[in-house]
């Protein structure tokens, strides 16, 4: 066997039926952290900059922004982005703590993933209710 021969390919089981894979809770937090990060980049930054510009420019701009908030579609979008930020925020803090080896055993990591999911959902819900 010469040096340049490729290593023998092992046949590994492939099991990628997305419907049947059961992602554990920390895995759900992780993929949502990625999705929320991408959503923040794609949508939240331009929306925040637009709102910042309009609201600082003049009192009229500030008022018109407030009246835009009365629109149900705008509210929905904003609530979605709010959830993305909150989830990314709490999941990010969880990762920072795990990097510091705080709660990186299996059981606490599972519990904190529940806490992250719950805290961001509940906070989003509370703010959503107050917005409507």
């Amino acid at each position: 066997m010469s040096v340049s021969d490729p290593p023998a390919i092992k046949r590994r089981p492939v099991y990628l039926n997305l419907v049947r894979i059961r992602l554990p809770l920390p895995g759900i937090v992780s993929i949502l952290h990625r999705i929320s990060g991408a959503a923040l980049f794609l949508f939240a930054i331009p929306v925040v900059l637009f709102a910042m510009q309009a609201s600082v420019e003049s009192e009229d701009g500030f008022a018109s922004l407030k009246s835009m908030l009365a629109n149900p579609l705008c509210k929905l979008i904003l609530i979605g982005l709010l959830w993305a930020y909150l989830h990314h925020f709490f999941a990010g803090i969880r990762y920072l703590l795990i990097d510091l080896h705080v709660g990186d055993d299996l059981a606490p990591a599972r519990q904190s993933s529940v806490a992250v999911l719950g805290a961001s959902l509940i906070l989003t819900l509370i703010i959503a209710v107050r917005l409507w």
Partner: protein
Amino acid sequence: MTRPLRQTIGAHYGWKDWLVQRVTAVVMILYTLGMLGVALYNGGFDYALWQALFANGAFRIATLLFGLAVLWHAWIGMRDIWMDYIKPTALRLALEVATFVVLVAYAAWLAQILWGTRQT
């Protein structure tokens, strides 16, 4: 001299980016908590408070710092995502360049809002 076999092009950007993403995360957490504190203390934002904030030099600097942290953090994060999912090199490079250009443009926009031609 022997060099480690796993050394790849770009040298140690792996651990540096890892650290940057965490430092910028802490900056963003602090800013978020600060703004939350201002909002809770004043019972929300009205126009007068908003104007006062933007007229405050420390607030502008802090907000610019936050913006730069978002820029750097999102650059590393989005590049990781493109690297994971986009395999054709040309497409991936195009997306990475586009991400970078957009982020720098956003930072310039933020600076313009903060130090623009507004009368205060």
